[in-house]
């Protein structure tokens, strides 16, 4: 059983996050809190495998709460889930002891990849942030980029890696070219790979193609 505590003041976000976990884990217990006071109550009274924490909270903000959680439960991994895309937040969070910094909008696959990495004791940031954070914090944040891909995106990556065009991929998958282009863009963004050549090289290196 995995015990996850979700701290966010928006119900729609808490529900969205919870559904992602529900889809992935069969044995799951979730707790929810919408402010720092409620969160600290749950932290001190119960044990959690992972804490998802929003920066933007009423009252004491998420960063202050992060420090408090790490003081109370230094071994419980805290995964920051924020709507702020700015890297300044990521840097501050990781300095304060967060195990990962995720953009809320990207949840789902990336979130699951991050959770898996964090549960195994590592720290996670998106590929685009990893390099900058290494500069700023001096640690190793290298994720395995393709962990953040959905199975469909992984499938498209493989096809592009063997030289298929967008049009061919669209035809193979009975999808519109526009949809395939979107997949292609998401892959680039999640993995920090710009060209088809880079994508092909990555796929070969990681045994994603035969």
């Amino acid at each position, binding site marked *: 059983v995995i015990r996850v505590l979700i701290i966010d003041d*928006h119900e*729609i976000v808490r529900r969205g996050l919870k559904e992602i976990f529900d889809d992935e884990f069969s044995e799951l217990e979730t707790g929810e809190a919408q402010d720092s006071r409620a969160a600290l109550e749950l932290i001190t009274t119960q044990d959690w495998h992972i804490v998802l924490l929003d920066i933007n909270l009423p009252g004491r*903000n998420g960063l202050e709460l992060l420090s408090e959680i790490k003081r109370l439960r230094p071994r419980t991994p805290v995964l920051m889930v924020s709507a*702020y895309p700015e890297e300044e937040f990521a840097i501050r969070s990781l300095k304060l002891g967060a195990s990962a910094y995720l953009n809320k909008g990207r949840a789902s696959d990336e979130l699951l990849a991050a959770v898996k990495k964090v549960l195994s004791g590592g720290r996670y940031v998106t590929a685009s942030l990893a390099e900058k954070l290494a500069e700023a914090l001096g640690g190793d944040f290298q994720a395995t980029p393709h962990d953040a891909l959905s199975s469909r995106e992984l499938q498209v990556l493989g096809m592009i890696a063997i030289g298929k065009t967008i049009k061919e991929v669209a035809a193979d998958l*009975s999808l519109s070219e526009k949809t395939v282009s*979107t997949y292609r863009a998401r892959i680039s963004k999640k993995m920090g790979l710009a060209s088809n050549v880079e994508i092909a090289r990555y796929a070969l290196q990681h045994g994603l193609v035969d």
Partner: protein
Amino acid sequence: MMTTELPTSALRPTGISVVGDLPWGTHFCHFYETKQDLLDTLVPFFKAGLEHNEFCLWVVSQPLTVEEAKRALGRAVADLDRQLQEGNLEIHSHAEWYLQDGRRDPRRTLQGWREKHDQALAKGYAGFRASGDTAWIQHDHWPGFHEYEKEVSALVADQRGIILCTYPLTTIPAAQIFDVTRVHQMVVARRHGRWEMLETPELKQAKAEIRRLNEELEQKVEARTRELVTAYEALKQAEDRIRLVIDTIPTMAWSLRPDGVLDFVNQRWLDYTGLSFAEAMADPKRIMHPEDLSKTTQKWLLNMAAGEPHEDEMRLRRADGEYRWFLIRTVPLLDQQGNIAKWYGTCTEIEDRKDAEQKLRDSGEQLRALTARLESLREEERMRISREIHDELGQRLTGLRMDLLRAERKLEELQGSPAVNSLLDTLVSATELADGLTAAIQEIAADLRPGVLDKLGLGAALHYEGRRFLERSGISCEVRSPETEPSLSAEVSTALFRIFQECLTNIVRHARASRVEAALKLEDGWVTLRVQDNGRGITQAEVANAESLGLLGMKERTALLGGEIVFQRDPQAGTIVTARVPQTRTTPQTKAPP
């Protein structure tokens, strides 16, 4: 009482009643019959000399002796002994005076007269009075006498001296009387107690001339006096007219003596102050405001001492007790020698101007306070809207995107059917749309007021803004800030952040720079933000340009926080903007954003 300062033409009393006064330089002679005749003349002659501070020299000859002369003179002059003792008078016998080893020596005698004359003047006597007698001369030995007497005349001419030569009528031959008469300017005779007088033509002429000159002088004095009286009256009339004019002008006016003492104020002055003329003269300062008194007095004393026009502003008390502001001007009137003859002062009421100045200051301050208030309200509003967009809109959009992505995954699992795939296409497109929307509103929120500034602080916000600047403009922007975020009030953070943004805007618009360096520093309770670019550099004209609202805004922001901002041109190239404000300061006008 005669003094040495008088001109040589001044008349001297001879003491001889029939002669009266004679001018300096007179060489005259006296004929006598008896010893008493001789004394009748010489005793008053020397008495007059002693009384008028002249050095007297009396050379006696037969029939008179030195002792007889002293006795006779002593009867007329009470303090003769003292006079002799002080050397005011010398009496010599002819032998002492005229003879050298029993022989005549006219040259030496003349020299003697000259020396006595010069000594008398050197010692401070009014002049020199002498008498000599030639009765001792054997009249058959006359040769050279004529020349001698001429020399004596020349000796006293134009000098402060009077010489009287006496001759005994009894022993002198008739022909020689004519000779003697000719060489003297005047002849007086005393015979048996009766006077007779002969004047030479020259003397008559000189006397007439003196009379004429005297009359002329009197006429001139009279004419000049008339002129002066006329001029004085004209002046007085003019002054009366001026005072009348001064009294009728609607401005307060006054005059002061050269030493600064008030000697006139006009009617308007009296009307305004409600004082009487006497009260005004007695203490004119009583109408000055006590607070202005020492400053204005000091300034006036300085200008008065320098003789320079004086100008000042001060409050003067009106009759009803109200003080009103006046501009005072006092100027010196110079006489022909350039000395100050008078000071004239006027003043103009400037109450309205002072009032307007005060109102302008007040309205300037109000405007500044209003601007500050508006700016602070605007900032609060930006923060509120930024949060609203980010929290409400942004979070809901995030929830929407999560739902859409989940739907995508679910549909992807139902592979194969064209209908499902078509639905998937629609869903992916919708997700992308939500993605774009999210990015747009995050941008808008950050533009209004970046969350970094409120959540993380000024240092992080400067880094963030610098990165956004690079993305937008392509100009690199390196930001340095303290390792730990400094604790600053929201006002200080906001002001410095906005100044930083304004600098970046200016750099894009004007600087033509390729690189920007910014540094945030904390020192001795002051926060300093320094922004430097490598562009063309701001000019003095641009700094001074009052219409540059951007610079004005930055100045206002720092001034409100009790700080300052400096715009400089870097010696190499580029512009340096340095803003400096106290680390902790809250101003009452601006409410800190929550």
